[in-house]
């Protein structure tokens, strides 16, 4: 019998990162044979056979130790293939899926995703409903949120505010106003936090602010009195990858508690924002021979511990050696959204591509449309789709308007009310 790790890797639809890691199936027929074998694997085997050793890896320990056996009971008797059929059945409705989430492990959902075609990933995810709250309510049916990503190549405050106002004028920003800072020092990060918090307070915007610095930088900023709404961190699916990010579960526990104690949320206390992405473990040489999609799903176990407001898979950022083209990026984005939703996470997606990937704006539109149909909680809003700091293309404010028109989706209710409250709001740049 092949180890689960090998079976999962061979069953994974083709992507360049698994080939680079040397774990992919060598032929299409070998891939399908692995999928057929995986379909016969009982879900219970995932509880006894781990893909990264329990003693070596705190993410594995988290997954095993926090597994909720009673929640798992309704599907305990199924194989992976049977689980796919069950997920597609009417029994698997929003209530059932929500109750099941704590009983599922990342490896189970990764496995079933590998047996699914695109329509399955979209349909099942669309049945999941994950609601999270801070200053507004995200993830409700019929809603589609956006992060304003007002990055600036030199962190210039007026440049950041200019992009923020542009986004608000186009109805974006209910998920978060979140800046990727160029400078990682506490002073610069605090400056942006204070700036955006004053701006938010001045216009009474029912949304949350985040500066996507390292978690320890945000802790020092909080120590110094900076207004941290959401605690951000990039996370991964192995202890070794998280170590390369400079984090551990213990560190995240402490930072989470510190953020909760600020009690800045008004309608809820989901105070964390995580970003992930397939391929990061291989790039940090921390993959343990596991395929990149399974490792990505394991990152969601880390996220789940902290009851996040937002989880964002940054799907097309990492480069063509991990996801080569539009087809691979599209599939990965849908898998990540599906796996995160099944595990009970408020999933969003940075639908994006770099210039050296074999992808373009048509591919971006395709994934955006599919994700919106799948009930994705939020996407990025970048001015004109062109991030002048991170040098990549993501979804624009206009792209979000396209989705809202196409599918009749609205922003978060509190934010929608704010948008319409004062149509002739006079914007002034705060000094």
């Amino acid at each position, binding site marked *: 019998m092949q180890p689960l790790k090998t079976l999962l890797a061979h069953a994974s639809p083709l992507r360049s990162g698994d080939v680079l890691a040397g774990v992919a199936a060598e032929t299409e027929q070998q891939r399908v044979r692995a999928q057929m074998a995986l379909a016969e694997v009982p879900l219970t085997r995932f509880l006894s056979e781990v893909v990264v050793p329990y003693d070596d890896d705190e993410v594995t320990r988290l997954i095993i130790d926090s597994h909720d056996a009673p929640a798992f009971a309704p599907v305990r008797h199924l194989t992976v293939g049977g689980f796919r059929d069950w997920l597609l059945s009417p029994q698997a409705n929003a209530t059932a899926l929500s109750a099941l989430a704590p009983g599922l492990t990342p490896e189970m959902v990764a496995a079933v995703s590998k047996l699914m075609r695109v329509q399955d990933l979209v349909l099942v995810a669309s049945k999941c409903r994950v609601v999270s709250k801070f200053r507004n309510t995200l993830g409700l049916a019929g809603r589609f949120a956006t992060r304003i990503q007002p990055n600036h190549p030199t962190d210039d405050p007026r440049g950041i505010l200019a992009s923020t106002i542009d986004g608000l004028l*186009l109805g974006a920003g209910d998920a978060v106003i979140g800046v990727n800072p*160029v400078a990682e020092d506490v002073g610069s990060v605090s400056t942006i936090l204070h700036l955006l918090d004053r701006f938010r307070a001045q216009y009474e915007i029912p949304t949350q602010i985040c500066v996507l610095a390292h978690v320890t930088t945000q802790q020092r900023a909080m120590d110094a009195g900076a207004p941290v709404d959401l605690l951000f961190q990039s996370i991964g699916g192995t202890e070794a990858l998280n170590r390369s990010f400079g984090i551990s579960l213990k560190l995240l526990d402490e930072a989470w508690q510190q953020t909760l104690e600020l009690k800045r949320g008004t309608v809820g206390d989901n105070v964390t924002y995580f970003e992930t992405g397939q391929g*990061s473990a291989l790039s940090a040489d921390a993959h343990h021979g596991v395929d990149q999609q399974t490792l990505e799903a394991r990152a969601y176990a880390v996220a789940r511990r902290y009851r996040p407001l937002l989880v964002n898979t940054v799907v097309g950022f990492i480069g063509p050696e991990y996801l080569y083209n539009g087809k691979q990026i599209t599939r990965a984005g849908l898998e990540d959204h599906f796996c995160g939703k099944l595990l009970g996470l408020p999933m969003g997606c940075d639908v994006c591509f770099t210039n050296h990937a074999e992808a373009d704006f048509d591919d971006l539109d395709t994934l955006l449309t599919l994700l919106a149909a799948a009930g994705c909680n939020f996407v990025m809003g970048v001015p004109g789709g062109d991030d002048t700091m991170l040098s990549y293309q993501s979804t624009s404010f206009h792209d979000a*308007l396209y989705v809202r028109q196409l599918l009749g989706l609205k922003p978060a209710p509190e934010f929608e009310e704010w948008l319409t409250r004062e149509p002739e709001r006079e914007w002034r740049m705060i000094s």
Partner: protein
Amino acid sequence: MANDLLTRLRTLTDSRIGLERAGGSLTTADWLALRAAHAAARDAIHAASGQPVIPPPVGYVRSRCQNRQQYLLRPDLGRRLADDAELPAGPFDVALVVADGLSPLAVSRHAAGLVGALRNSLAEAHLTVSPVIQVAQGRVAIGDEIGERLQARLTVVLIGERPGLSAADSLGVYLTYAPKAGRTDAERNCISNIRDGGLDIPLAARRTINLIEAALARQLTGVQLKESAHALKPAMAPALAGPLDRLPPRRDRLS
């Protein structure tokens, strides 16, 4: 009111703000402008690699990548010299390497100028310099193997950076003390954004020479070696900080 405001906001950032709408979508002009910028970046990445642009003495070598597609898919092969690569005999104080990286366009536009300025300054500093080793389909780390074989004290790699929409011809410089295969990015220093409208060649050369002298004196490069602030014009300070990655260990993405 919105138009006045947007006109004012547009002066505050180079981001694509204040774009008009056709319904909710981009207007034809803005959409085609975005497409044109992407097309320029794509063409820069796929421009012919390894074109002779540097005045002699120059040695031409290849990485283990057979073509552009393999370069994009197999970063490991782009960091290794082809088996038949021939290099001049060392030792040298400084090995000069030019690699296309992700923008052959950047190399064809800026590498000859920067090499010329560096050769002059290094000669004035009485440092011995290798012939320029120009690598087709090479990544930053290929300079480690080259520097090791040339018995160089330090390798300077000039490489085309990943094209963005605002600039497709940006050149980067990476310095590695005591080069040998297996060095990590934490052991290098980088000067980024060398292009028209970015860091100009005279200043890029001066900063490179300052770093070379500091590296040779302190016998290291990397996170422990900082550029001295007085070497920079204030206006250029932001160029010190290259685009940050969201996923920290992926800094080699730029090359």
